[in-house]
């Protein structure tokens, strides 16, 4: 819980403001989850502070919410290419990915339970950044990573909006985006520079060689 609050502070997710009359803040709560590895063993315990997005009102608290979903077929096609071209296949995950995007709407939420400011208990949080649970959270994150990759010279694949490709004389990089997980298939000479590029912009965990994604184990000989 502490590390979640730390990342909100570092990220300047919200400002504490007096409540506006006539504008009800969206309720928030804590969600606790047990993360498992692909083989079923315990990875870590996770706490996340989320907005109760179902209380949001269309036109006031959100507008666009659609975000595309990746296909298993695309993943298998990338695996085929990786094997044929003998690319490196690595996995990275973005810490608190949904907190990156800039919000277009003005949104207020209640203070996180257990972390209520002692001097201003009645204040509410005015969001600067997107938050888990908001209806538009996925979309805002997708827009953020999409514009970042394009800026760095990646091309979005027409047939699948979750695949980005980068070609240069020294090789190729294919990125498969699954929400906040990035599967990176890269020529060995490009792998490190791609990771560095991502680290510079986002706080990321480098999970090294990809051994599992979406409950699918990836085994390379």
């Amino acid at each position: 819980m502490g590390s979640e609050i730390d990342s909100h502070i570092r990220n300047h997710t919200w400002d504490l403001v007096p409540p506006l009359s006539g504008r009800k803040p969206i309720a928030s709560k804590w969600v606790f989850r047990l993360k498992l590895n692909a083989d079923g063993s315990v990875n870590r315990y996770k706490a996340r502070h989320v907005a109760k997005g179902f209380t949001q009102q269309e036109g006031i608290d959100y507008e666009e919410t659609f975000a595309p979903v990746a296909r298993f077929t695309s993943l298998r096609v990338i695996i085929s290419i990786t094997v044929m071209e003998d690319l490196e296949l690595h996995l990275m995950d973005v810490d608190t990915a949904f907190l990156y995007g800039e919000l277009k709407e003005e949104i207020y939420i209640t203070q996180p339970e257990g972390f209520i400011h002692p001097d201003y208990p009645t204040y509410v949080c005015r969001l600067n950044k997107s938050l888990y649970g908001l209806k538009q959270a996925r979309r805002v994150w997708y827009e953020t990573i999409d514009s970042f990759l394009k800026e760095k010279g990646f091309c979005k694949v027409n047939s699948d909006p979750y695949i980005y490709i980068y070609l240069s004389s020294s090789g190729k990089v294919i990125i498969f985006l699954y929400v906040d997980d990035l599967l990176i298939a890269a020529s060995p000479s490009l792998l490190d520079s791609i990771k560095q590029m991502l680290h510079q912009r986002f706080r990321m965990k480098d999970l090294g060689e990809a051994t599992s994604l979406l409950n699918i184990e990836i085994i390379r000989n």
Partner: protein
Amino acid sequence: MLRQLGYLRSILTYSMSNCKAISTPIEVKTSLPKLPATPTSALSIPYRQAIGKLIYAASSTRPDISFATSMVSTHLQAFDTPHWEAVKRIFRYLQGTLHYGLIFNSNGQSLLTLEGYSDADWARDSSDRKSTSGYLFTLKGASISWMSKKQDTVALSSTEAEYIATTHAAKEALWLRGLLHDLGYPQESATIIHEDNQGCIALSKNPIFHTRTKHLDVQAHFIREQVRTNKVALNYCPTENMVADFLTKALHSPQLIKLCQLAGIIPTTHHC
């Protein structure tokens, strides 16, 4: 190699974790009755949860259970003991094939050629006489895309059922060709789709058999257009080598094992 050993172990619940393995996911000629409503005695069965888990496995690494899973999932609205027994049989099959996964080989060539298989089982469902479509696509022998689906309309002949199935396969072929093109692997020639019905192949080339096909919907002629413009080509393949066969009907164990091998679904020796 892609596999789901851990996931499959975790879904073998419903007091199935020590169940006895069985060699096929569904008994040959299985027919499940269509019920008006779930009887009270069956309400406590976790039918939908179990199928949700099977669908995840079927669509990520296990095309061999796709047909059986799609069959039980047409009864989500109303089910009883026979349906639940069919679900449990799929789990028993998984119990014996936990180590199976999709194999990807590099085999030296630097060409990524897409190949497909399309099949149909005519009037399989005895309650509404609708047929089942199935397709499977491979890249260098590795399965990358597959589907098993009951057709929306009633086909009047096996050729017609096959023809409708090739439409689904052709749509997928077009999308895959586009994806491969975008990723730098344009398919220079037409994508071969293997098909075991000569009448269907003839029909895709020429508007023959007018009296028997004049009623076919416009969308079924989509395949003819794709053949004419050289995007796909239908190629005859004898039924015993028709990989998509296991996506349209229940097979006996030796044939299922043979087709699984052709589709690159094989046991792994790697342990974790």
